[in-house]
């Protein structure tokens, strides 16, 4: 099987502008940031959540807490992948009760990751509201889950893969569409 890069979907500056816009949208729609917090889903949701929080500080000094969530224990496909699965720590240092939480991830696809993340969150308490922010929505949902804050919607086929490469993890900064060819 070959992996072929088909197109670049976003450059570094487009990622940056998109995150700025998402930060503004979240602040605008939340109606007060007192109970607002961001939860980055490991791995690439974590730097994205931190960057959105950074952008919010530039808006009007809004300082929102950022937590990280590892969803491995809540996956519904553990029987297929678990033996290789390596757990990471979740780190949510604030109480989630009555909070207005925004889950942050890089790509929204089947919706199963978000289902798992919500199960993880509800083990920690009862948030007032949970919304979802993603950099890319690529369609093909298998769950009744939608994002409220979306960077870009991309039409894809199921053999294609969207790779979000971030400087914190991948030492480069862009979003590419790759295809698996047999």
């Amino acid at each position, binding site marked *: 099987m070959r992996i072929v890069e088909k197109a670049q979907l976003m450059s570094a500056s487009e990622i940056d502008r998109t995150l700025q816009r998402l930060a503004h949208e979240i602040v605008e729609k939340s109606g007060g940031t007192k109970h607002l917090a961001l939860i980055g889903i490991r791995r690439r949701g974590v730097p994205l959540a931190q960057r959105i929080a950074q952008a919010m500080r530039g808006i009007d000094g809004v300082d929102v807490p950022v937590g990280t969530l*590892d969803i*491995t*224990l*809540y996956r519904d496909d*553990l*029987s*297929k992948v*678990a*033996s*290789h*699965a*390596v*757990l*990471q*720590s*979740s780190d949510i240092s604030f109480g989630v009760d009555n909070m207005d939480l925004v889950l942050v991830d890089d790509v929204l696809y089947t919706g199963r990751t978000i289902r798992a993340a919500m*199960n993880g969150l*509800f*083990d*920690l*308490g009862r948030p007032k509201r949970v919304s979802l922010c993603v950099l890319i929505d690529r369609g093909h949902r298998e769950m009744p889950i939608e994002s409220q804050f979306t960077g870009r919607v991309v039409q894809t086929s199921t053999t294609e893969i969207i790779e979000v490469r971030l400087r914190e993890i991948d030492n480069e900064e862009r979003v590419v569409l790759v295809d698996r060819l047999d």
Partner: protein
Amino acid sequence: MTHRFRDLLALEPLNADELTFLLDQSKPFQEIQRHPLKKLATLRGKTVALAFFENSTRTRISFGTAASRLGADTMNLQAEASSLKKGESLLDTVHTLDAMKPDCLVLRHAASGAADFVARHLDVPVINAGDGMHEHPSQGLLDALTIRDRKGSIANLHVTILGDILHSRVARSNIHLLGKFGCRFTLCGPAMWVPRELEKIGAPGVSIRRVFRVEEALEGADVVLVLRVQTERLHEPALSTDDYVLLYQLSAERLRRAKPDALVLHPGPMNRGIEITPEVADSAQSCVLDQVTNGLAVRMALLFLLTAGDSENGEHPAVEAQAPRNRRSTDVKDPSHASR
């Protein structure tokens, strides 16, 4: 990183990277002990068989709670209630349990090598919950996790072990784990319990010395591991309980010989007033309750690593890449009969 754990029988064969991996995998489960809702559905539908051929309360409860917090069911076999009293062999008993199709077997047995013996005969993953005088790997892991949390690292510590080291699987698992991180060991206790052979049980290069005065043994220690004294092993005229208290009990005064931030560990259950004074047991240096909580985290991590996965299709690729495991059926002696 993928892992290659099929069973967990002993810490001795594991290298520092593998041990670090097991400790790191316990961290997310430490967080879960602090959650308001501690129950996960991760192992829903899986069954963990707890086969305890030797009395145990805390280890059995710890594994049982770990299984239930992961959403797994347990089947319990306890020595008193079991058919062992009716003369069934260890192998027949575990084959019977295995026929009920558990996804993991946790085994405690009075014979050294029992877990290894059972693992060779069954395809189900086996976790050794203590075998005779050999090893108690989950205890070694939870002790190391406790030390690492309090000290920040388990590298190059001076560890003093007090008590009946000869009969202690806890001491052996601790030496096999901490020795791989450059820790050095001082063993102290009555001479009959600290024979010269113990100096050689570590991997090559691990420093183990025997000291018979407790004050000298504690000098400069970073960690003091106090072992439970089996009072039935103390008897006149060799050594009475009073003699033991006088010569080896860990008291606050003696503990002052160790480093000011030295940690005190005890695998439990404690005999207050025999191997340890209540003052030390309840001091800020004592880690005994942390050990209990960390035991749950370690055991959840082990159950997760060994039983999550596709039980229908067997082993995952990282395991298949290894040489096929030899499940012998006839050429190993049943250790449960060896001691009779």
